[in-house]
């Protein structure tokens, strides 16, 4: 075995398939998108080179509305970190404490992650339906007719109506990550804290949470990057409408490329999404490092 490891040829050979795959389906397309984003191109005929024109339009054109979609995505990221993650954390702490039917609850909270997003989209379309949707029906029965809305069709509510299922769906995902993290904390530490007279809350706050910081960091990165890339549920529920009220960068990108045949402009959006994902991932890592010091 050691001889194989020392053999440079073998190392190269065994790395080759994975490297090729990684290059052909991730790295090369990113660079190709980067090139396409400098073109005015409809995807079929020959494109013309326009330099940074697409990027300038991204940030200046009001009708394209990219800056607004960026705002929406960042809002979603903020909500994920400050609403979704705390809920996940509380659930994970409670479950990991060892309550009755612990395994059942872990699976139950994880179910939304497993269900196809399109199915979830259809379910929530029914929940939001202005006529027979459960929300409006309940409001009517409570005598709150004036609160009824066309949730997905009203510009003032569409964005939050779309965010709720997104946040709800991935609570279970983060909960599972955190739950696994908490379970791996040595029970001896907890017991020691208890013997020293710490309450349940103090044990969690001063012992468990600091121990699972790496997991929390992962969750924050996933939540932020996931928010920037959010696409499927929005596509199913509103497709970015009405009048761009719930548009995010990825739906705008698909709209531009496949709806309007603007491959160059769409590629520029793709590059921006990639850039922002990297940027935030690095920033979050830095932030947690500072915390540790």
């Amino acid at each position, binding site marked *: 075995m050691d001889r194989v490891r020392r053999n440079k040829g073998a190392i190269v*050979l065994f790395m080759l398939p994975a490297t090729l795959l990684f290059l052909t389906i991730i790295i090369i397309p990113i660079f190709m998108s980067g090139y396409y984003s400098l073109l005015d191109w409809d995807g079929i005929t020959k494109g013309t080179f326009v330099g940074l024109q697409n990027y300038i339009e991204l940030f200046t054109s009001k009708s394209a509305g990219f800056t607004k979609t960026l705002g929406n995505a960042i809002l979603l990221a903020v909500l994920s970190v400050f609403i979704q993650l705390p809920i996940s954390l509380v659930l994970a702490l409670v479950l990991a404490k060892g309550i009755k039917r612990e395994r059942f609850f872990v699976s139950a909270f994880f179910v939304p992650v497993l269900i196809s997003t399109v199915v979830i989209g259809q379910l929530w379309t029914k929940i939001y339906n202005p006529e027979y949707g459960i929300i409006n029906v309940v409001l009517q029965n409570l005598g709150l007719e004036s609160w009824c809305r066309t949730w997905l*069709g009203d510009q003032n509510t569409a964005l939050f109506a779309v965010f709720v299922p997104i946040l709800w769906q991935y609570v279970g995902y983060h909960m599972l990550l955190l739950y696994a993290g908490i379970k791996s904390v040595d029970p001896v530490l907890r017991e020691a804290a208890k013997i020293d007279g710490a309450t349940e809350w103090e044990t969690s706050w001063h012992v468990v949470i600091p121990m699972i910081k790496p997991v929390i960091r992962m969750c924050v990165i996933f939540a932020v990057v996931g928010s920037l890339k959010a696409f499927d549920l929005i596509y199913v529920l509103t497709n970015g409408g009405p*009048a761009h009220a719930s548009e995010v960068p990825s739906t705008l990108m698909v709209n531009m490329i496949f709806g309007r045949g603007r491959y160059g402009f769409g590629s520029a959006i793709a590059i921006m999404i990639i850039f922002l994902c990297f940027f935030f991932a690095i920033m979050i890592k830095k932030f947690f490092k500072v915390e540790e010091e």
Partner: protein
Amino acid sequence: MKKKLLSVLLGLVMTTGMLTGCGGSGSQDSKAEDGKTVLKMWTIATESDSFHNAYVKAIEDYETAHPDVKIEMESFENQSYKTKLKSAVAANELPDIFYTWGGGFSKSFVESGKVLALDDYYGDYKAELPQQALNNATYDGKLYGTTYTTPVSMMFYNKAMFEEQGLKAPETWDELKAVCQKFIDAGITPIGMSVKDTWVLAMTHDALTLKSAGAEKTAAALTKDGQSYNDADFLASAEKLQELIDMGAFTDGATGLSNDEAAATFTGGKSAMFITGSWLGGQIFNDAENAENYDVVPVPVCSDNAKATDFMGGAIDTLMVNADTADQDAAATAAFEIARSVSKYAYLDGAGIAAWAKDYDDSGVNVLTKKIADYTADATSFTIWFDTLMDSEDAGEYLALLQELYSGNIDPQGFAEGMDAQLSK
């Protein structure tokens, strides 16, 4: 040493396997083993599509008439097919015959020189397929495709609900408004509408615009042919749409409804009118409980610029032939003859209005489809739907502006100016 050799071999096998896995499939090898010419055809007539049956029968007919040719049809879902077709054109992987949309959608395909011109073959079929139906398959005066159906926008209405209110089908804008008001007063939604699927709203707006500005002016503005969109007639149609919105003529919460949901309010008897393509005729006979309650008329005329017989719509479903096909004659004739049979069978199924001459018994066709066929037989003009007629980029902006107009973010003047700005880019 042996182990090393083995690992080298394994590595090679793995990488070659990966590389050959995604080889392309062109249309070059068109001779099957038994000497038959094999023609590959792509369509969107999937099994759930209303044209599926017509295609299957048409291919059977063609193979019976031409025993030396075999047609291999592959069908794809509409939305994903658009992407597939575009990438196939770019990658030179088109089949011999392919379904596409005429007008702006296929313009770049033709310009890239990958589509066969069919003028030499059209002569044989001229008597059966009117030139007018092929407008959208004609680019720079040359014919590049054939068609089988001429869908048009019509106004469907619920006759029973109209009679209940003592109303008759509106023929002019003023009558339409009066009818809407009467329904609103009676607490009934006059017109079914979906804004989430913006093309439904576009169908209504397209029709109002055509009936306000007339066919020539509309086409000239949308194809950037020396006509500004910022014009009194176009402004008038946007204002009319606004009037209908303001009076509450459309389904409540239309911004959140899909086309299927909106159409269900109409077929379920909850709204009185629905402006959409002729295909709803067949759908009513499938979905509505009392199909005999429904009737259809042309969209009301809004000004002297247009007549009742001017129609929004026309032949857009197009079969084109790959310029690189191995046997051009066989593929071109097949495209025409299959289109002819699809025209017949789809009409008999009630799936579409026949584009080709009818030389067969059509007494079994549903009343609505037949009625539309009679209307279109007298058509003075066909104008293809805005979002197909315009370049895809302009069409995207058009749909976005319509949503803004419907949501009240811009007024009719702003809409006309926005359209003008996009079209004069």
